[in-house]
């Protein structure tokens, strides 16, 4: 059924040519900023972070390109499989995961520890995109048609909440919501969910863990407990503020290098960057992120199939949420929820997840003219 004229056969060479290399350059630039910050965090040493991060990135770039060249229909075909595999891993974490940093997040596969909640962010997007790819415009408005997608969102969210990992749970839920929004679910339904969530907040409060409650309370008034839970955010703001317009210079941030700033190589790396490079450096990084997000949105809009549009839009939103939640958290706009800065923070699973995500986005761009039918067949309708 393939039409050689309308959809020219995409050879590997053609695919590689049509890859959005500019986006990869942007991603690599941000990652390089990360390497520099990890080098600084280690007092001018490639160890223990920068070198490993570089190797991971190199590997992840490879994975990204492979993902990008895989035919988008294959992703559609395996969307549910991947989703349920990730869901199964989340259950496995619940049963057999080991506890790190006070939460059960990791699953040891012997040679590598993986964080199923990270994979879920991508695979949920795939599953929802597949679901809505199959839905006709008229079906989207139907209430019953909302049951499956909401179940797809709720199941992993609850499992992740139980780990407990509030930040990731919120991100998973919001990513899912974003896909539903892009698919065209009515706005008033979102408003309803929002109102419902507000109403349920006092009840949810009861289910929060002590440390989660403490983080929220600390956010509301960090000076309450300056040496305890409020310490992170106070020190982070001091570091940011003292960085000023131009910053203290590379490897010169006293707050970071004198260890006043906690976890500077992971969640608080943006603070360190803004201390050393000032407002100028912070804004520059935000601009880079904004460019990546913009590319993602453009790729999504340009795609000619709904699956590709939703995948690119959803993954881009996930990426954006990482950026926003992390920076808002270290600048004291929202509570500390433990979300890393994408591509910059030290960490293997997040890096891999993000690069798979970007692979999908680029893949959507590469395969933007590939026709995807309601059931994933080559020719739609």
């Amino acid at each position: 059924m393939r039409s050689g004229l309308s959809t020219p056969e995409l050879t590997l060479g053609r695919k590689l040519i049509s890859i959005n290399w500019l986006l990869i350059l942007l991603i690599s630039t941000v990652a390089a900023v990360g390497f520099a910050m990890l080098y600084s965090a280690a007092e001018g040493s490639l160890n223990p972070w920068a070198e490993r991060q570089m190797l991971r990135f190199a590997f992840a770039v490879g994975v990204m390109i492979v993902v990008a060249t895989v035919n988008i229909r294959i992703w559609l075909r395996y969307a549910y499989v991947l989703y349920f595999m990730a869901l199964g891993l989340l259950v496995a974490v619940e049963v057999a995961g080991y506890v790190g940093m006070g939460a059960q997040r990791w699953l040891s596969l012997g040679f590598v520890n993986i964080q199923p909640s990270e994979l879920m962010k991508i695979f949920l997007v795939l599953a929802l995109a597949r679901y809505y790819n199959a839905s006709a415009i008229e079906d989207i408005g139907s209430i019953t048609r909302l049951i499956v997608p909401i179940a797809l969102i709720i199941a992993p969210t609850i499992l992740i909440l139980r780990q407990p990992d509030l930040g990731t749970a919120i991100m998973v839920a919001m990513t899912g919501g974003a896909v539903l929004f892009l698919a065209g679910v009515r706005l008033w339904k979102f408003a309803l969910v929002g109102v419902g969530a507000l109403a349920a907040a006092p009840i949810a409060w009861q289910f929060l863990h002590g440390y989660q409650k403490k983080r929220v309370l600390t956010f509301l008034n960090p000076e309450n407990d300056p040496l305890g839970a409020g310490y992170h955010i106070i020190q982070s703001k001091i570091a940011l503020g003292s960085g000023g317009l131009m910053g203290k210079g590379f490897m010169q941030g006293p707050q970071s290098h004198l260890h006043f700033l906690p976890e500077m190589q992971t969640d608080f790396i943006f603070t360190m960057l803004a201390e050393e490079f000032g407002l100028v450096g912070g804004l520059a990084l935000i601009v880079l992120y904004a460019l990546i997000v913009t590319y993602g949105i453009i790729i999504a809009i340009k795609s000619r199939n709904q699956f590709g549009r939703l995948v690119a839009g959803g993954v881009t939103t996930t990426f954006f949420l990482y950026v926003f939640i992390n920076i808002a958290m270290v600048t004291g706009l929202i509570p500390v929820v433990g979300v890393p800065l994408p591509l910059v923070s030290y960490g293997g699973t997040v890096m891999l997840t993000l690069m798979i995500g970007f692979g999908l986005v680029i893949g959507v761009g590469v395969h933007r003219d590939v026709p995807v039918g309601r059931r994933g067949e080559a020719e739609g309708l």
Partner: protein
Amino acid sequence: MNRDPDRHKIFTRRAAMLAGGKAVLLTALCGRLYYLQVVEADRYATLADENRINLRLLAPPRGRIIDRFGRPLAENQQNYRLQLVPEDVKGSEIEEVLAHVQKIVTLTESDRRRIVREVRRNRAFVPVTLKENLSWSEVARIEINAPDLPGLMIDVGRSRRYPYGPEAAHVLGYVAAVSEKDLDEDPLLKLPGFRVGRAGIEKVHDLDLRGTGGSSEVEVNAFGRMIRELSRREGQPGAEVMLTLDMGLQEYIAKRLGQESASVVVMDVRNGDVLAMVSNPSYDSNDFNRGLSSGEWQQLVNNERSPLINKSIAGVYSPGSTFKMMVLLAALEKGVISPDQKIHCSGEYELGDAKFHCWKRHGHGFVDAMEAITESCDVYFYEIAKRTGIDRIAATARKFGLDAPTGIDLPGEQGGLIPTRDWKRATRDEPWHQGETVIAGIGQGFVLLTPLQMALMTARLANGGRAITPHLTRAIGGNAGGPRQPSDVPSMNIPPGHLGIVTEAMDRVVNHPTGTARRSETGIEGFPMAGKTGTVQVRRISKLEREQGVRKNEDLPWKYRDHALFVGFAPVENPRYAISVVVEHGGGGSSTAAPIARDVLIEAYNRRSAGPGLPIAYDDRPRNGKSETADASSDGQAPTEVADRGEGGG
């Protein structure tokens, strides 16, 4: 080629909305960054500096105390202490390390408990002191074993050292740890291990000796570990305090006194410089700095010879016969007696029903003023005291500064007591009795003086009636204070003729065959001594004992023996030195106190060129009329039965 234009249109619209939302949120982040990094930048910059910059005080070295010739009396010595940095002890428990250390230096059980506690409490890089004041051999043994003792280091601190130990302890005082009530705005006081002067010169000149603290700004990390020094402001070291003391003389006196419980004060009559002030027995100031055990402390407190009290300024004694010069001057001034007028001494003096005895049982016969002083006739002074009245005697004593503390630059000075009618009415609500005047005439009864006051009185007699004041401080940080020449000192307006009689009589006490201290002349050409003996009983002699024969001092327990006193000056012409000697329960003034005074003044004479002291012009004219007689008749003042008070001890 869009196969589902509706879905695409919806998606595009929604994607644009989402992108708009994202743009708003990213703009909010940029605004937040602008707020933190530009608007609030100064506030956070200050906070960041407060975070990382620690101001550390640097203790200034305490000023030295030196004697008049520059010999150090209090200095700072290196104090080696053994410290342990817990984080450098890798892979072994603290108890293991201590067991190892135990083989080299001894640690008590309480030391070990303290060390373990401090190691647990502090961060691992904070050194914990294992032992202070290491001896040289301990330092050497630790250094030799250093490779086997990781984490151990020897730290050099400063501690106060008093090279002369007990010999000048009462003058110098000591330093001790800061107590709660010492704390004021000086931040130095809060430094751990800081010492403040607790007694003596160390206390009086504490602020000068202390200096001002420097500071060092250091950058610290979040755990308080020092990273580097940012800036340093040196403090002002404590000023050096030069005393008027001649430590050589002081040492000699301490040695000369031996085991006696006694005080000796030597003063320069021209300017009030205190050349020596010895209170015996003493304590070692170094022990206080080191810290006394409760046993050692109890021993000091319970010692009946009161080593902790500076007897020279805080011991009050009946001056006994040494007070007779005051009585004579008062009587001459009032005109109740002329120098040549004789009074008969039968050995007894009756006033109403009371009977007062002269120390010479059968009396001196007719004596004039000169003879009365020379032979220390009591009856003569009973009579002239009665004629003069207590208030006139007190007025003269007041001129000599005996009614109040002399104001010497030492803490804890007592003032003694010069009684008056008003005083008795005010404090006891009783009228004055004439018998009390009579007994005051021989320096007993209510009259009390400190040895320093006795020396001051003598100095003011010897320098022609100039109101010098005693002091120990010669210079602080090189700035000399106080009058240096007698002409700077106001006169007390005592008629020179009266003073001449008194000083000539004092000359005869030592240098005339009838004098009570005739065996104590110096024997040095041009450096004769003048003086006055005193013997003060400290027990009541009953009538029965007096009839059966008064027991000799040697037969009595130590604390019932008489106090031996002597005041004197030398040389007789152009005097320079005044001295007071008080030997508690020492027996007789002439047998015990006068020889000490003689030996001390000879030593002072021999030391006159010991250093860059004040030039002195001695009268080298040979003196005549010096007696070589060794007549061993009883001298000094024997016990007298007194109407109301026989105790003379401080």
